[in-house]
């Protein structure tokens, strides 16, 4: 997949980093500029018609000053949580899904940031691994960015997979909507890296997931990394409750299980479309022609717009039954749903986040 950039900005202290060298070598046609402090360059361009979109086309290679590891921003005491530990190696994404939470979450610093000192994250991870030696950690890079979108030019996945391959107690999750897997195929993950794909029916892909690989391409990529020794998982998230949604999502599962044996899938997560009022406003402003943003969403008890409860739960239930029928061994969880919805859909109360994370990491 080729994503276009307007400009690459490199912080002086990162000028001689291996990451900058790899990116410059791979992006010959893109103008490069150097700056002493890139923090001003990640701000929104006030002259751009769509500052968030403009940010996606400006890659800033900089030194990360904040910690690389953080708790998943979706976590909250209101919801059951999957214990996902986020490793922030980049921020923003060259693809442009209409429902993406980044449109609000990083609206104040939308440039596509990649951190030249990303191997410092390994030290943090090592400390976390020692501190939490009694449980397995599930760590992912796909929360504030797509894990593989620019992997062709950054090559970061090779370092990550290589690092985790020799560490017990860590499962690295690379989450993506691309089919950028070539670098992965050249490294042996030794069972310690899982690649996960967010999947949507073709209709959602066509209306709402600009620049992503098609659902079929994603599934075929999963098949290939599985053969190369990686674990695979899938996120049906966000599930959008348009008129034929149940039929289309069930058909998507049929297609998935045709290509990837259910027994080979580590887990499948389900999550309904949810938007804070600010995100909803930003998304509708940026994607005024997307009918998927005009569903039967109501202001829910948590202050987010969600599909009204019985419809949302009914969709979850239909998908859960289909997945369980394919293989009861596939782990399933719901993202950002209260315990009562877990009980209704999965027939059990959710476990504490750390326990869920550890279970997913071991599976």
């Amino acid at each position, binding site marked *: 997949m080729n994503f276009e950039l307007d400009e690459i900005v490199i912080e002086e202290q990162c000028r001689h980093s291996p990451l900058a060298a790899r990116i410059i070598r791979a992006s010959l046609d893109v103008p490069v500029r150097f700056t002493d402090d890139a923090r001003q360059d990640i701000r929104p361009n006030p002259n751009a018609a769509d500052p968030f979109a403009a940010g996606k086309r400006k890659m800033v290679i900089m030194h990360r000053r904040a910690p690389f590891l953080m708790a998943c921003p979706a976590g909250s005491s209101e919801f059951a949580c999957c214990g996902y530990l986020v490793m922030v190696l980049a921020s923003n994404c060259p693809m442009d899904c209409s429902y993406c939470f980044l449109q609000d979450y990083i609206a104040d610093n939308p440039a596509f940031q990649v951190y030249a000192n990303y191997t410092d994250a390994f030290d943090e991870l090592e400390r976390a691994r020692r501190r939490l030696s009694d449980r397995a950690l599930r760590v992912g890079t796909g929360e504030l960015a797509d894990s593989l979108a620019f992997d062709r030019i950054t090559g970061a996945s090779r370092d990550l997979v290589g690092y985790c391959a020799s560490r017990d107690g860590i499962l690295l999750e690379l989450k993506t909507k691309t089919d950028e897997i070539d670098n992965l195929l050249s490294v042996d993950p030794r069972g310690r890296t899982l690649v996960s794909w967010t999947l949507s029916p073709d209709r959602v892909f066509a209306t709402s997931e600009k620049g992503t690989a098609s659902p079929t391409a994603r599934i075929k990529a999963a098949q290939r990394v599985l053969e190369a020794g990686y674990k695979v998982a899938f996120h049906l998230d966000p599930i959008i409750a348009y008129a034929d949604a149940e039929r289309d999502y069930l058909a998507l599962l049929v297609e998935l299980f045709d290509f990837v044996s259910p027994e080979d899938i580590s887990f499948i997560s389900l999550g309904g479309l949810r938007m804070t009022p600010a995100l909803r406003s930003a998304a509708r402003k940026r994607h005024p022609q997307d009918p998927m943003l*005009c569903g039967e969403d109501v202001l829910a008890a948590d202050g987010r717009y969600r599909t*009204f409860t*019985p419809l949302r*739960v009914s969709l979850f239930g239909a998908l859960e039954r289909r997945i369980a029928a394919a293989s009861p061994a596939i782990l399933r969880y719901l993202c950002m749903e209260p315990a009562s*919805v877990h009980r209704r859909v999965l027939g059990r109360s959710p476990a504490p986040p750390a326990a869920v994370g550890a279970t997913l990491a071991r599976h």
Partner: protein
Amino acid sequence: MSQREDLRERVLSWAEARHLDTEHIQRWLALDAASAAAILHAASSLGLRTGQAQAALEMLEEIALREGTDAASILARAPFKRILEGAGSAPARARAFVNELRVMRFPRLGRALEELKAEVAALKLPQTVRMVLPKDLGSDELRIELRVRDGEELRASVRTLESRIAAIERILALIGGPV
């Protein structure tokens, strides 16, 4: 003055009189001429209040986008023609107009709420007991209110609730979604 300019002036004039905000005026004027005119006709003949006009504009845009049509075609449908051409006071017809839009904008929610309201009515609860459905079914929580003034009313209310447990569980299942 061209027809489009004339329409623009009439929309601006209506909007100014109602203190409609700039964002909604711009959205109105950005519509195709037939849709902008149809909305102006509805707004004028029903005397929509500002909030009603804002809600109507938003819902019409969303229905049109979802159904791949335009606001003029939606407003030409029978339910709206009946309201626009029907008898009754303007405020009552304005309310009916916005309600009809809401039914179209949220068809499945509307059906679910109707079903629930019918189930609640079938409980035939005394005035001391009230079932409060979650707003727009945005949660799975049913609120049950008791308003009692003495022990006898309390015991009678609780006995009524106990005798309706199965039906209330059915309502909870409808609110929470099928298991």
